[in-house]
């Protein structure tokens, strides 16, 4: 497919990706550092004669998405950390009602109002629940502006395929930085999923009902078991990750998103000094690629995990590896970003 090269920010790439992936409805609310995305959607959705709403709140935005999705269209919202906290009730309802939707979180520093710097401190919230009840989001972590664009197709497809909300998790850094990316010149074929459950009016069929309330003994348990079966299917089939320098390396770096880019720079500096480093990047944070990491790390000496948090994904790394080898963690949060030199110093100190 022929493509053109454009120089855009991660936030804009997400918007363009969403539009091309057939997103018909967007609702959002102003919050930094994702405002460029909302503004982009205001313009592009109008051009495409699709629906854009600036909602009165994050809560309203996610519930508008609930309604749009229930009507059978591709729908999304975006926000940043404090706003995503507000959306958690709606996300739980989407999961309970098995409605597809895409939620973008351009993470900023927390807790509370925090600041507007880059952060990866919402990992737990994104991958371990966030809202109430036993549910999972599929969580995609782009590592470049190109992936911000590409992953929107994946996000909408996975959402429709599994009737499940999907979160695209990035950070202020990736959202605001611009890179040159390839965008196909022609229209991209969108996968069409049959939505015979959607609320389109009960014409020639029995009425459709969207619900997450199940009263009566055992009925809700049955619904939950159905959801768990779906999550197992997703675990079995949808794990994505990237490995570099698998062979002849002594240690492993594990990082995602912007942290991976910095970790990779640090690994190049170490290589110059003679230490070979394998790189592991989970792309789906849920389902987390436990087996792939385990198999990569089995003949290595140590694993280093780098995050813009005080240690969240590292718990999944430890779950994957157990006590089989030492796992070291280095992280910064509060909107601060480590440098490759910082990582290098940390590795040299621990690996001495």
């Amino acid at each position, binding site marked *: 497919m022929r493509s053109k090269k454009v120089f855009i920010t991660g936030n804009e790439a997400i918007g363009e990706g969403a539009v091309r992936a057939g997103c*018909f*409805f967007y*609702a959002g609310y102003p919050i930094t550092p994702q405002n460029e995305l909302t503004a982009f959607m205001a313009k592009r959705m109008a051009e495409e004669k699709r*629906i854009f*709403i600036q*909602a*009165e*709140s994050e*809560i*309203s*935005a996610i*519930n*508008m*998405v*609930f*309604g*749009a*999705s*229930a*009507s*059978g*269209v591709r*729908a999304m919202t975006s926000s940043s950390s404090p706003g995503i906290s507000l959306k958690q*009730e*709606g996300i739980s*309802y989407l999961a309970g*009602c098995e409605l597809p939707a895409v939620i973008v979180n351009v993470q900023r520093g927390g807790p509370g109002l925090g600041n507007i710097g880059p952060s990866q401190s919402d990992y737990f919230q994104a991958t371990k629940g966030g809202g109430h009840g036993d549910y999972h989001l599929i969580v995609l972590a782009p590592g470049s502006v190109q992936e911000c664009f590409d992953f929107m197709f994946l996000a909408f497809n996975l959402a429709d395929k599994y009737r499940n909300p999907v979160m695209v998790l990035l950070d202020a850094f990736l959202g605001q930085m611009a890179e040159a990316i390839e965008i196909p010149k022609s229209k991209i074929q969108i996968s069409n999923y049959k939505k015979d459950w959607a*609320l*389109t*009016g*009960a*014409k*020639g069929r029995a*009425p*459709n*009902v*969207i*619900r*997450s*309330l199940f*009263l009566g003994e055992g009925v809700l348990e049955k619904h939950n078991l159905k959801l768990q079966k779906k999550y197992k299917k997703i675990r079995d089939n949808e794990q994505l990750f990237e490995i570099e320098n698998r062979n002849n390396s002594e240690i492993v770096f594990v990082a995602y998103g912007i942290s991976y880019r910095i970790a990779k720079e640090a690994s190049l500096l170490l290589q110059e000094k003679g230490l070979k480093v394998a790189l592991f990047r989970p792309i789906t944070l849920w389902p987390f690629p436990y087996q792939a990491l385990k198999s990569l790390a089995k003949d290595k000496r140590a694993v280093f995990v780098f995050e813009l948090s005080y240690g969240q994904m590292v718990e999944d790394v430890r779950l994957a590896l157990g006590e089989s080898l030492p796992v070291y963690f280095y992280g910064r949060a509060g909107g601060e970003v480590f440098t490759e030199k910082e990582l290098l110093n940390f590795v040299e100190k621990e690996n001495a």
Partner: protein
Amino acid sequence: MLEFKKPQTLKDKPFHYCPGCGHGIVHRIIAEVVEELGIRERTVAVAPVGCAVVAYDYWDFDVTESAHGRALAVATGIKRCRPQLAVFTYQGDGDLASIGMAETLHCANRGENLTCIFINNACYGMTGGQMAPTTLIGQKTATTPQGRAPQKGEGYPLKVPELLANLKGVVYAERTSVDSPANIIKTKQAIKKAFLNQIEEKGFSLVEVLSQCPTVWGLSPVQAVRWVREVMVKEFPLGKIK
């Protein structure tokens, strides 16, 4: 000959509501209006959190639940994507006027082309009779055991149609009741108008229905109807507000 029969838009299932409750009456009115307007195949209801959450057990058309208070945001999403549908919300006073007030006010202010049926029974019924924003002054509830007292910071009965009538996006706001056959007929006329406004793409319509909740009020069904007529309407006067 006048034949009394169940509308096709109601399933053949007895209502689970308490004896004397107003929900069953209003459910039936809506079902009759949808049938008479011939819009069953393009009607979508948004049910609230509250006693009426299981409205889909009774209405024979598409229904979705919504989170507590968010019905009008959900309805906005549906209607904007499929404007050919007739979309309405069915909400109680706690849902619409307390936890969902922001969604209610802004949906009305945007002038969404929707129909909102607002059931005011002056209490939270499903959770056991707590104070609602529409609870009358002096009315005893589970959370106002001495009676609602504004001087204790418990606020005043909230008048939703009067509040919304100030907004340009609202084309129609009326308060009715279901305490007598005459008022049931008036309620049906109001609800029909609220649906017709949407079909004619006029904008946001709200009908507040004063509805009896004998169980929480601690009254017999007959006493409850009398309480609506003699007490509740003094605070919430019936009629067209806009």
